[in-house]
């Protein structure tokens, strides 16, 4: 079965406060950095999925996101199937 590299980006849902992102943003002047705003911190989860095709790989991971990797009450997940490689 082919294996797919998948990237899941877990972000806080719009409207949910992101204190970590806000703290990082507030600290930038300390580093002498200007012109940067809207800092939001999420998770980047990479995994390898065995599946017959992209679509199946995506389905498996989206299901995993909904059941386990995120709490849909506050988080969204974006799944990108990055590449396929034969095993």
């Amino acid at each position, binding site marked *: 079965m082919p294996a797919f590299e998948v990237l899941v980006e877990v972000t*806080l849902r719009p*409207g*949910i*406060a*992101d*204190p970590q992102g*806000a*703290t990082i943003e*507030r600290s930038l002047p300390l580093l002498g950095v200007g012109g940067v705003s809207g800092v939001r911190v999420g998770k980047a989860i990479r995994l390898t999925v065995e599946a017959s095709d992209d679509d199946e790989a995506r389905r498996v991971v989206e299901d995993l996101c909904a059941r386990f990797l995120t*709490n849909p*009450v*506050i988080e969204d997940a974006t799944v990108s199937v990055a590449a396929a490689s034969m095993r």
Partner: protein
Amino acid sequence: MTDRPLARSLGLTDDEVDRIEAVLERDPNHLELAMFSVMWSEHCSYKSSSIHLGRLPTEAPHVLVGPGEGAGIVDCGGGVALAVRIESHNHPSAIEPYQGAATGVGGILRDIFSMGARPIAVMDPLRFGPLDDPRSRWIAEGVVAGISGYGNAVGVPTVGGELQVDPCYAGNPLVNVLALGLLPVERLVLGRASGVGNLAVLLGSTTGRDGIGGVSVLASAGFSADEEVEAAKRPNVQVGDPFEEKRLIEACLELLERGLAVGVQDLGGAGLTCATSETASKGGAGMDVWVAAVPQREPGMLPVEVMTSESQERMLAIVTPDDLAAVLDLADRWDVRATVVGEVTGTGRLRILDRQAGEVLADVPAASLEEDKPQYARPRQPPADRADRLADDPARLPLPTDCGPDLLALLAHPSIADTTWVHRQYDSQLFLNTVVAPGADAAVLRLKAPGVPAADGSKGIALTTDGNGRWCSLDPRQGTAMVVVEAALNIATAGARPLCLVNNLNFGNPEHPEVMWQLSEAIDGMAEACLALDLPVVGGNVSLYNESQGRDIDPTPIVGVVGLIDELDVPPPAVELVEGGVLVLLGGRADRAASVAGSLWADHLHGHRSGQLSPLDLARAARLGRLLVELVADGLVFGAHDVSDGGLGVCLAELCIASGLGARVIEVADASTLFSEAGGRVVVCADGDGAAAGIARRALAAGVSHQILGTVEGASLAVEDLVSVPVLELDAAWRGALPSLLR
């Protein structure tokens, strides 16, 4: 015409809308309706419970501030006072366990430091569904992580709590948090706005759309089976920021220390609406609030959203114009945002304006949100099956001849098992105060805090929380009294005299007459016990609508008791045995048969939850409490543990496990007596026969029944004719349970 469908969607009943119209002498607009809906929510108004709460005893010479303010305050002597409060965050924790619990910690700390006290301790009584269910496990892990994540980072040690597991909490966990702080008596401030022309300064976080209407939608209604209804509540999730709160603590304490604020009030449930109306009405003043001045996290927020948002980590300070520059400076030093958002007026009205001198968006009598709130004498009625349940005595249950397997099963029950998995995730040591850490009957702290001049270096405090839904479901009145007795005895084993009690009444849907009956009974039981034990109630919280899919939780009043130790020069007795020790049971005898009604044994091993609780003698419990304090002060007690969940059997096993020593016990009447949870009993360990006889004599003189149980010896717990299990086996069952369930 008032928009009634809108009012209903905000959680207001038609009668309540009539009432608002009468107060305003006109129809309320949307913003006004929303403000009333949050202030008159069950969570903020106590509309179902307040007529009953008045029966609790609240006075004592050392009580400086009783119920009704942010926190209760009691005098510890030497110019030091202690602030204490308990709160629940049950509903938010069911939806997002980590943030629900985290914001629960944050919220209660603000109650403490808004009164000028430095928070020095947190405790977290928790109730979950069975941990072999993945959802309950997810909730439990998330809640503990949230308390750890917030409490540790905000820099307040979590020094104890409880973990109890029962199927009735599966859909509706209980996450209560108690916080305690210290202050110099002269710094005591109350949340009041006075002085026309003084400014309302909002400190801390920006205001976002998070938690809008949280008190009315989330905390004042149960969980329904309807997915869509639940989904609609979700945007209410708030995210805690302990770093913001830490800076707020430092900034607010400095503000009060330097006398730069007339009053300080936290923004909790009902957000700005509650903070502004309460400060204004308590100060006998009015207030203008300028919506556009409020720093907003998101563009396009409506005034109604700004006024009802429950964004975390915000405080309101009332400041004279002369002090404003100093306040802004101080806030800047701590990187705390500070913004003038309104001013105190002499009108007695709370007016919401779009900007200073702008359009008036709402105009209500400030006191009306609080004083005109509805009070319900809701119908009360004992459950229909009450008589049957009382009559169904567990005496008919088969008693084991070898109690070893049952004892091991109880030790592995999550309500009894070792909680190290939980509390080692908590910083329990900060401030170098923690003399007895989580794991004992009560936490013991040195009485000192940064910025609070030590009254007397050797004073200490003991604190504990207790609750027992199983007992209270059989008999809410006596069950609650037993809970108060247990808490009082827990602090007494640490040698502490009772100072005060706070309580959190976690109950089901108050629109069910059975629930109102439970609540009313529980309050009476608490009142009786508090009177007998000299415990003034200095604060509390009521959490109703704890139900899921139409099923109410067991009535679960949780109490926190604080006691004072006059001289804390050596650590008080631990849950421990000493070599050559002799065990004495105080507060009862084990050679006379006792009932297992309401016990964990009957419930867990036989699914039996009926019968009549063993009678409780409050006067004797009070005598026992006083006796224990004397025995500890005289250095006669080398180990102690109260008899609670799992009865005498579990009590003895826990003493053996903690010290790695065995015990030989004689004259326990039968298996029922071994597992009976009859209240008001403590096992102490004396360091020899003579000392034990001395304790027995003092007990006799004090009118406390007692029995010399046996001696510390061997490597097993051996109870004549009933149990013989190696301590190592007891230890493995007790220690292994939670780590095998939780991650």
